[in-house]
């Protein structure tokens, strides 16, 4: 077998190599024969969904875990003897929250034996680099997520290691901080440091020099990201011209044999055509007279889907079995001036929107901006300090219980009972949503069949693969056929095929008249929304269909065809500029 890590000509010897790594936890093979090399002066991406084995591989490289098979070498030695060559930032940054920024730096400098006479200049450089100089005396626990991430990076860098391991540094951090971090890492690579960046965000893969795509403990792809997208570059198309019927159009497109994947992109749909198939033109797609087909650049995610064997069909079995939600003049979800104050602190300020029946509405914003607070007020879990809201026509102040019973709720990370079996979880949620004996049995049988849970009924929910957890969580939320669905970051971290499957169901339900409210900081999910509102520092700073937010961003930045993430960043920066102008006035 040829060496999978064929080094290109002129590249320096790797700072870290792993060959044939196998790591077994109980029965599960977390890593199953994995090879990887980190080259100096480059960003090597370790990309894959949650549970793929990224953290395990990084821990093996950092000398924190022993592999069952295979060899690891850091600067041509075993990791345990090269600890001072490794800078490591764990997922939660490894900061002492009750120590100040400076005390954290001093601790790690001392632990890594940075000569004392060098410390002052190193700290000054790192604090400047991370823009934390002003916050030296602040306890790490009182920093924002983005600032914690930068401090974690600074702590991993105190001894200027030749190898930097970053375990999902972008998780839970807003896109602006994420971009700043990328800029910093780019600067580090210019100094010759070899960086391993692990991530579940596939868009980050495109920024890496070399990508290792990990899925279920195996490498699906190794090489520069352009190599993966290059193989499909002429097979991705963007189809427009059916604004109001785009969900229907996507369903029909996905049901075609030549289309292996498709997503909504605002008013357009984006399709990936199977290998060897002829790329269809507007006439072949047969979606109406205004249909236009334009080729569009392939993304890393398209390549991943192709490697995984394509996405699901477009028709949702769940939607087919779902009741038709009756039409109504009243909006399905309404927020009027929702405000929540906790003491002096305002978590949400005057949030207003209406969502008509059969629409998807997205609450976007960085962590801590007020998304969850707004969401919880609409669920009836928090009483608003001011303002009012309604769900399915029930006022939250007067009929909170009825409002709650007409919504299905899928929480972040699925909030299933991990110690109960799949069947027990289904029974429990059927009871929690007030389904009586016969109804409950029927509902459970229906979702078991639709989500193919039959083989797993006796298994504990906590031990299910991520994709089945997601199916089970959705099954529990829709068993009582609610007219309204609330989804809290429903697909972050899951692989793109599972994400497609999930949105296929949601699209199907929406066509049945179900109304959906999504909170997310994941820009892909925003593209599925009819309307979004961007919440930042407790206020709505922009609202409208994704396309119009992108148009606003294009005006602000002068960039044509910005992504949703570009729009997000541009709008937040504009809001910050306004805030500063106001303060100055």
């Amino acid at each position, binding site marked *: 077998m040829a060496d999978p890590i064929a080094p290109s000509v002129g590249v320096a010897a790797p700072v870290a190599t792993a060959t044939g790594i196998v790591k077994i936890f109980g029965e599960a093979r977390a890593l199953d024969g994995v090879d990887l090399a980190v080259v100096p002066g480059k960003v090597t991406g370790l990309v894959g969904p949650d549970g793929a084995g990224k953290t395990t591989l990084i*821990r093996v490289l*950092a*000398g*924190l*875990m*022993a592999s069952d098979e295979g060899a690891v070498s850091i600067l041509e030695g075993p990791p345990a003897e090269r*600890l*001072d060559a*490794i800078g*490591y*930032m*764990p*997922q*939660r*940054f*490894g*900061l*002492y*929250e*009750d*120590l*100040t920024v*400076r*005390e954290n730096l*001093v*601790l*790690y400098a*001392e*632990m*890594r*034996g*940075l*000569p*004392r*006479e060098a410390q*002052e*200049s190193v700290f000054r450089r790192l604090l400047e680099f991370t823009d934390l100089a002003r916050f030296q005396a602040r*306890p790490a626990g009182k920093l924002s997520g983005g600032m914690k991430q930068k401090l974690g990076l600074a*702590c991993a860098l105190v*001894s200027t290691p030749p190898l930097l391991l970053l375990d999902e540094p972008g998780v839970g951090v807003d896109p602006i901080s994420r971009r700043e971090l990328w800029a910093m890492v780019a600067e580090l690579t210019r100094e010759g440091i070899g960086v391993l960046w692990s991530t579940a965000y596939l868009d980050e893969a495109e920024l890496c020099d070399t990508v290792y795509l990990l899925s279920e403990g195996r490498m699906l792809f190794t090489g520069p990201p352009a190599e993966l997208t290059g193989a499909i570059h002429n097979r991705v198309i963007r189809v427009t011209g059916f604004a109001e019927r785009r969900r229907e159009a996507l369903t029909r497109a996905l049901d075609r044999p030549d289309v292996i994947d498709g997503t909504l992109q605002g008013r357009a749909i984006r399709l990936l055509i199977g290998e060897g198939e002829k790329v269809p033109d507007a006439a072949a797609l047969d979606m109406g007279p205004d249909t236009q087909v334009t080729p569009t650049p392939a993304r890393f995610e398209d390549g991943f889907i192709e490697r995984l064997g394509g996405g699901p069909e477009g028709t949702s079995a769940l939607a087919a079995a779902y009741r038709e939600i009756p039409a109504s003049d009243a909006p399905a979800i309404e927020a009027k001036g929702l405000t929540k104050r906790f003491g002096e602190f305002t978590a949400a300020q005057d949030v207003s929107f209406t969502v008509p029946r059969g629409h998807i509405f997205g609450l976007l914003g960085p962590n801590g901006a007020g998304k969850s607070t707004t969401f919880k007020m609409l669920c009836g879990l928090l009483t608003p300090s001011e303002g009012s809201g309604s769900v399915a026509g029930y006022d939250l102040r007067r009929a909170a219980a009825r409002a709650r019973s007409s919504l299905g709720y899928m929480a972040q990370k699925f909030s299933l009972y991990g110690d109960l079996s799949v069947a027990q979880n289904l029974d429990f949620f059927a009871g929690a949503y007030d389904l009586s004996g016969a109804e409950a049995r029927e509902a459970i049988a229906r979702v078991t069949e639709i989500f193919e849970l039959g083989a797993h009924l006796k298994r504990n929910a906590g031990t299910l693969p991520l994709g089945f957890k997601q199916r089970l969580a959705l099954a529990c939320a829709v068993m009582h056929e609610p007219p309204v669905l609330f989804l809290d970051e429903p697909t972050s971290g899951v692989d793109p095929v599972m994400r497609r499957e999930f949105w296929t169901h949601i699209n199907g339900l929406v066509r049945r008249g179900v109304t959906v409210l999504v909170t997310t900081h994941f820009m892909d999910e925003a593209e599925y929304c009819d309307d979004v509102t961007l919440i930042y520092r407790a206020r709505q700073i922009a609202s409208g269909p994704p396309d119009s937010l992108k148009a606003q961003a294009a005006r602000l930045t002068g960039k044509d065809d910005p992504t949703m993430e570009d729009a997000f960043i541009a709008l937040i920066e504009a809001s910050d500029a306004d805030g500063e102008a106001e303060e100055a006035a």
Partner: protein
Amino acid sequence: MSEPATDPLPDPSIARAQASGSTGSAGGSSHRRLLALIVKEYAQIRRDPSTFLIAFAMPLLLLFLFGYAISLDPRETRVALVVQDDSAPAARLAQAYVHSPYFDVTPLNAVIPARALMEEGAIHGFVVIPPDFGRSVARGAPRPIQIVTDGTQPNQATFIASYAEGVRLNWMASEMAMRAGEARATGMGPPIDVSQRMWFNPGLQSRYFLVPGAIAIVMTMIGTLLTALVVAREWERGTMEALLATPMRMIEFILSKVLPYFLLGMGSMALCTVIAVTAFGLPFRGSIFALFAIAAAFLLPALGLGLFISAGTRNQFVASQVALLASFLPTFLLSGFIFEIGSMPWPIQALTYAVPARYLIPALQTVFMAGDIWPIILPNILIMLGFGLLFFILCFRATRRSLD
């Protein structure tokens, strides 16, 4: 290079150690890392209000509870006295009850109201001096008196019964003495005179043995519970992972937990002792050296157990539960400071030998009440050191430098 004075290091000790520390290899020297970890631990202790509460507020609370609020001595228990005889001996017995410091007596002349008071809970027992009592005494065969107690509170009932009986026995003795006085006048010999003296704790005050118990509890909390919690916290918050990725050795980590909490435990023990002696008037008949030797010998197993627990659990909630079960409860129940070991059934007695606090209590009580009696103190210290060694060996075996 020279540094501007406006950039102070967080701790001057780091600056002091600079000259010696900078000669270390690229991986850093062990004592520099240990010092940095201890400085970190100190900063955390200083800023964490819960550590401060456990180390300084809790000892004060416990001392107050054991010193004032909880007392195992019965005082002024409310009882009724039903006197159905008007003879002189009966009156003298009734007087004896009224004057007893242990009883707050309500005199009655019938049993029925006494029963009513019992049912209301206004009294916890009553004593009935039956009719003809005086005459039976004169006959030389006194009728028994009746002592009725409220069995819903068994401890108090036992105390009332035995103290009431004690009062009667005292009365009997004085009656006999009176008769003996009369008899001496008629040429008969004096009866045997028994006089009781309690050594070391003449008033038999329970706070004298409860306060050393409080010190044992406090040192257990700091040594085992707090240590188990702070190590588990490092695992839970992911800081352990970051530390393990540095060249730190496990011995450095363990020492960085042992040293600060050892000092904290000793400080807290000293605070307890000062308060016990000054505010509660406990005698302190031994030497300070002996006290510190005993406390140090106890803190070793306490710390070792705490570290062992956290090495196994890595989770604050589980660590606290295990620490409560494995150290706090045995210290409370099986060390002999509240419940006398001698009166426990033998399997439980056997179990007490596995509780390090069992050896601390007698040693502490000796230092407070009797003095430096080394034949008692020294074996206890040695046994505690033995437990300490055992727990530290277990702890090192359980601690691996790995996340597996």
